[in-house]
């Protein structure tokens, strides 16, 4: 059994809306080991995004403890959590969130800019490599508004990879894409998984869960299912099986 990098212990997250308290997470416990590709599913409002934000150290639990790489996140202050996000976590969002009027390369360099250890040249080299890895070596200097949705999401994935994170978090990363492009992105995630990266992937689409190594299902802020996926399907095969696009 490989090293566990995420450990959730009875995590609760409440939001106060006026006089009411919304219980978005009602006691969630699980741990995720290095190299797992976890899909998180659940109906709308079941608390998936809330959990992902907690895992990404963007948010802190109302109760319970979250250990990332054996460090209790609740002991960190805001700035420490910023640094932690910068060094250990890569985010991929549904809506890409690339900077407008900025080239792919510059977008990917962005996380490294907040890390003083890198020089300008190192940043550029690493960003080029990351874009290479997502198959965009020919789009380095294209601006974000000159690319397709799929390409933008690849740039976003490259941005999430560039700092060699221990954890990649994706919240409905394929939500805005057509089936074909979604599969392409899944191919990419599977490649990353093969390389040994830990990925947590929130999705509404049960088909996509078949590509991951473990499925967690949430309902009403609780884990109702947590299964290992014994036979992971290959996204590449599915993509090849798709009928060629007719014009």
């Amino acid at each position, binding site marked *: 059994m490989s090293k566990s990098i995420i450990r959730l212990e009875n995590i609760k997250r409440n939001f106060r809306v006026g006089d009411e308290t919304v219980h978005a997470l009602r006691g969630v416990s699980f741990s995720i080991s290095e190299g797992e590709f976890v899909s998180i599913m659940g109906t709308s409002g079941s608390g998936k995004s809330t959990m992902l*934000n907690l895992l990404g150290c963007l948010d802190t639990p109302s109760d319970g403890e979250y250990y990332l790489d054996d460090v209790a996140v609740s002991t960190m202050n805001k700035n420490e959590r910023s640094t932690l996000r910068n060094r250990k976590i890569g985010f991929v969002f549904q809506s890409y969130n690339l900077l407008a009027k900025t080239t792919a390369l510059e977008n990917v360099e962005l996380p490294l800019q907040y890390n003083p250890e890198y020089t300008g040249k190192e940043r550029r080299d690493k960003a080029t490599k990351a874009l290479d890895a997502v198959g965009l070596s020919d789009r380095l200097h294209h601006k974000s508004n000159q690319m397709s949705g799929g390409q933008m999401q690849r740039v976003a994935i490259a941005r999430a990879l560039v700092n060699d994170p221990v954890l990649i978090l994706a919240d409905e990363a394929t939500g805005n894409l057509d089936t074909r492009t979604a599969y392409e992105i899944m191919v990419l995630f599977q490649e990353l998984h093969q390389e040994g990266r830990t990925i947590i992937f929130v999705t509404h689409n049960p088909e996509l869960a078949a590509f991951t190594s473990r499925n967690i299902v949430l309902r009403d802020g609780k884990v109702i299912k947590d299964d290992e996926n014994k036979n992971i399907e290959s996204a590449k095969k599915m993509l090849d099986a798709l009928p060629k696009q007719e014009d």
Partner: protein
Amino acid sequence: MNIGNLIKISLRALSNNKMRAFLTMLGIIIGVASVITMLAIGQGSKKSIQSQISEMGSNMIMIQPGAGMNGGVRTSSDNQQSLKMEDYISLRDKATYIAACSPSVSSGGQFIYGGNNYPASISGVTPEYLTIRKLNIDDGNVFSRQQVAAAAKVCLVGKTITKNLFPNGENPIGKVIRFNKIPFTIIGTIKEKGFNTMGMDQDNIVLAPYTTIQKRVLAITYIQGLYASALSEAVTDKATVEIETILRENHKLKANDDDDFNVRSQKELSSMLTSTTDILTILLACIAGISLLVGGIGIMNIMYVSVTERTREIGLRMAIGAKGRDILAQFMIEAIIISFTGGIIGVLFGMGASFLVKLAISWPISIQPYSVILSFVVCTVIGVFFGWYPAKKAAQMDPIEALRYE
């Protein structure tokens, strides 16, 4: 994040919105340019007044009969004949802080030479008067003590007089001109001085021995005024006090009697005038400063818009590791770049505008280094001050909220 990167990011953000950045900057440009120009105008006036006053003799003291002026209003009109020849003599002989002293009597009338005539006044003085008023002889000679003693009918004339009486450019020396039917021989001309700050023509002048004016023109024995020069500008006040003491003694005034004369020094006049221009400068600078303030509010406004517009960007930057202070610095630097660049352009514009003012209406201007430095400092402070709140707002955003912002 290091400062170089932050500046790059800010420049990028600004260049993505060039027109907006420029318009925001325009407020600062206009503000700074007007501060520079207004200060240049104010300081220029002050300097030119000061230099003209020192040209007129900064250690000059004027003594007039009658009670003092009170806020420009003569408080009493009697005693217009209170100054006598004895006053002149005792000042000349007793005063220790006075370098030179001259009585003054004058009369207005028409000067005639051949077919030309010109209205002007003639002043009766001693030769010391020229030193006191810093007047120089251009051609010919000053009248001598003997000529003063003999009440000789000689005179010195200024450029305006010769221009009008001798329009064909003849040499006026030795010519006899008539003043109220009395013939005066011109024995010298006075060097041109031009107009003074108050717009008075300093070349419209005719000087003659005071004895001549007293006896032959006015038929009086008293004197209308006295001019003196203190040993130096520094002892002007002492000289003034001394003059007052001597005159009070001469006039046998009791301790609580008011002066029946008044003594005014050029220094007093100078400080009065410069304080007037100082007030003018402050006023102009205040108006200009208000426009600079409005420019600053413009920056604040645009920074708020910019922060709101880029909420998602802020959220993203935070998600990938930007700390609050990184975001704060990013927006602060943006504001400072706007104000600083605006400041530089404004200074250049202000200097240009000042020279235009000088060229167009030949108003004296003087650009002081301090006004340039002041504008820069104020500009940067404005950038920091008005950039702070929007930047702080950006830095305090919740990344989750910001990322969800539509």
